[in-house]
């Protein structure tokens, strides 16, 4: 009996403490809620609305009919019409589209010819699911309303770009860089300020001539270096073990990574000024990591997500970084091809860092 009352004393104390930690309490509700919303609602294996462009070199009644039928599947959403297949490749490389539809000038004749494809789908193979979706399109039922005898097979041929052998590591590693950097960078800095607050170091520091900005930037600098070392490690292992290429400029990749790391560190610092304990900082990191993995396009194709999920994804730095890494490493894109992504990351870093410095008052009240 004594043991039971002691046990209950511990339990009651634990519940009492827990109920006073508002953030932990919020997480008890927030984490399952977020997960079920993410997995049940936002994540859609049935991909729709992939961005597409068409180069209709035939421009006949039949080819226009084909395009309208393709549009009706809602799998591909035609955003651009261009003149040549070369222009499709350009759009693909810049990440503007996931699928390019190239229709040959002799489309009408090829439709009746079983031995040759009439349409080529140029697919961005740097996004793992897109190729599968495009392959699905190959089997779409096409019924031309003319009496034209269409060939049943081989009307559409899929041509995956950038990862023709469709090896998983090639798809995964560029995104994985983003996930690893998000995880470690945010975790390191989220605890940085709050750790010193817990240990009492902060009361000493704020009494010295150190300014908030000096403290913030000074804390962040070593972690940028750590992040770049992590990047090198992933690239080397990825290349040696899995033959993952870096087709674009390695300098571009490092510039993108530096800005991305700064953005994550800024976010981490901001979190650190907002929480009271290291435990809360870890919880918040975990809370932000889930959407970073699921809504960034790392696992599920971005275009397939509902609009709300896409907005959340767009807000996360990792989404933009994954676009950059896939572009630079696999599609041989340069930073100039993807200017918006870099500008977003840079702005995010500056805003987060400034917000952290402003929140971190050198006063105690």
């Amino acid at each position, binding site marked *: 009996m004594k043991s039971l009352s002691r046990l209950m004393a511990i339990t009651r104390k634990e519940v009492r403490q827990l109920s006073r930690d508002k953030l932990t309490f919020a997480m008890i509700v927030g984490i399952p809620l977020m997960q079920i919303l993410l997995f049940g609602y936002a994540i859609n294996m049935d991909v729709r609305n992939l961005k597409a462009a068409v180069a209709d070199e035939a421009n006949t009644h039949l080819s226009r009919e084909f395009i309208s039928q393709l549009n009706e599947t809602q799998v591909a959403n035609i955003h651009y019409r261009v003149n040549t297949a070369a222009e499709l490749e350009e759009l693909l490389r810049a990440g503007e589209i996931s699928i390019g539809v190239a229709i040959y000038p002799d489309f009408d004749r090829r439709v009746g010819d079983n031995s040759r494809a009439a349409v080529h789908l140029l697919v961005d193979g740097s996004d793992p699911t897109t190729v599968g979706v495009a392959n699905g399109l190959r089997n779409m039922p096409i019924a031309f309303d003319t009496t034209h005898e269409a060939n049943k097979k081989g009307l559409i041929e899929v041509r995956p770009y950038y990862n023709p052998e469709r090896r998983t590591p090639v798809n995964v590693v560029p995104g994985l860089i983003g996930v690893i950097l998000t995880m470690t960078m945010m975790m390191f800095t989220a605890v940085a300020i709050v750790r010193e607050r817990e*240990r*009492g*170091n902060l*009361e*000493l*520091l704020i009494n010295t*001539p*150190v300014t908030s900005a000096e403290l913030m930037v000074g804390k962040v600098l070593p972690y940028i270096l750590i992040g770049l070392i992590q990047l090198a490690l992933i690239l080397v292992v990825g290349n040696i073990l899995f033959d993952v290429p870096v087709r674009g400029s390695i300098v571009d990749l490092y510039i993108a990574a530096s800005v991305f790391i700064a953005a994550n560190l800024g976010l981490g610092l901001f979190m650190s000024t907002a929480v009271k304990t290291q435990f809360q900082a870890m919880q918040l990191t975990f809370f932000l990591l889930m959407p970073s993995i699921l809504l960034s396009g790392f696992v599920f194709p971005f275009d397939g997500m509902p609009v709300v999920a896409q907005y959340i994804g767009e807000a996360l730095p990792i989404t933009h970084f994954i676009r950059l890494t896939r572009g630079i490493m696999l599609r041989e894109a340069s930073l100039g091809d993807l200017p918006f992504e870099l500008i977003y990351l840079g702005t995010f870093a500056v805003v987060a860092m400034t917000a952290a410095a402003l929140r971190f008052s*050198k006063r105690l009240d």
Partner: protein
Amino acid sequence: MNVELAIRARGLSKHFGDLRAVDHLDLDVPKASIYGFLGPNGSGKSTTIRMLCGLLTPTEGSADVLGIEVLKRSSELKPKIGYMTQKFSLFGDLTVTENLKFIAEIYSFPKSETASRIDELLEKYDLIDQRIQFAGTLSGGQKQRLALACAVLHKPQLLLLDEPTSAVDPQSRRDFWANLFRLAEGGTTILVSTHYMDEAERCHKLAILDHGVKVADGSPEDLQASTGMTIVEVLADDPYGAQTVIHDLPFVASVTQLGIRLRVLIPESVDDALGLVDRALKNRNVTATTHIAHATLEDVFVAVTLKPAEQAA
């Protein structure tokens, strides 16, 4: 008044919600002296110190520290003051020397002089053998010496010490105070908060705080000479019985038991306090000897912190 003041505060107040942590505090701290804040926990000592170095914004009132208006120009003040927190606040995972070096860099101490300054401090504060030891593994007294060394490294004109000796043994406290006197002789002004009477007694001047209000200030000698109380010391075989008797006397302000002795505080306005106590004890058949004693700082403390309660009653 031509005495140079290191700190001059007028009407300094800090409210936390309904709590008046510090209530209209006036303070004049002369330069190159040790000024003490004596008061129980929660009397507003830490809050006052934090307002004086710009860590907390006063709800009301103003303070000039070293001729600088704290509220407006606290960043100018920081390089001129040294601050020692109640809790050890140096980096436990850095060595003694690394902590000192870090502080030197933070205060932009001239690089060429840093090494010799650190050696000087290690020597002065008896930390030479601990120079490559992690600060987190030092003993209480060593930690405190390191904290003081860090607080004075940049040669501040004013040192603010918030209960610096609350975690150290009596010998370390004695050594610590010897160091403070050396610093004051060198021209440093020191403001130190404490709840130890023996420490308060060492200060040149002190202010007694109670519930955020300054209830008395002056030199320890002046305070002891002007308690407004007659102190009767009672030696009794049955101190508890004697205490019961004395406690019932309407004119007695306070009774404190110290072993078999009782210290009885009676307002000076009461004539023949000794005789009154004697007779009261005899009437109740309590055997005891009594005599008039000099006021200690503890008597002062009891006398001044009693007043608000008496007035309320």
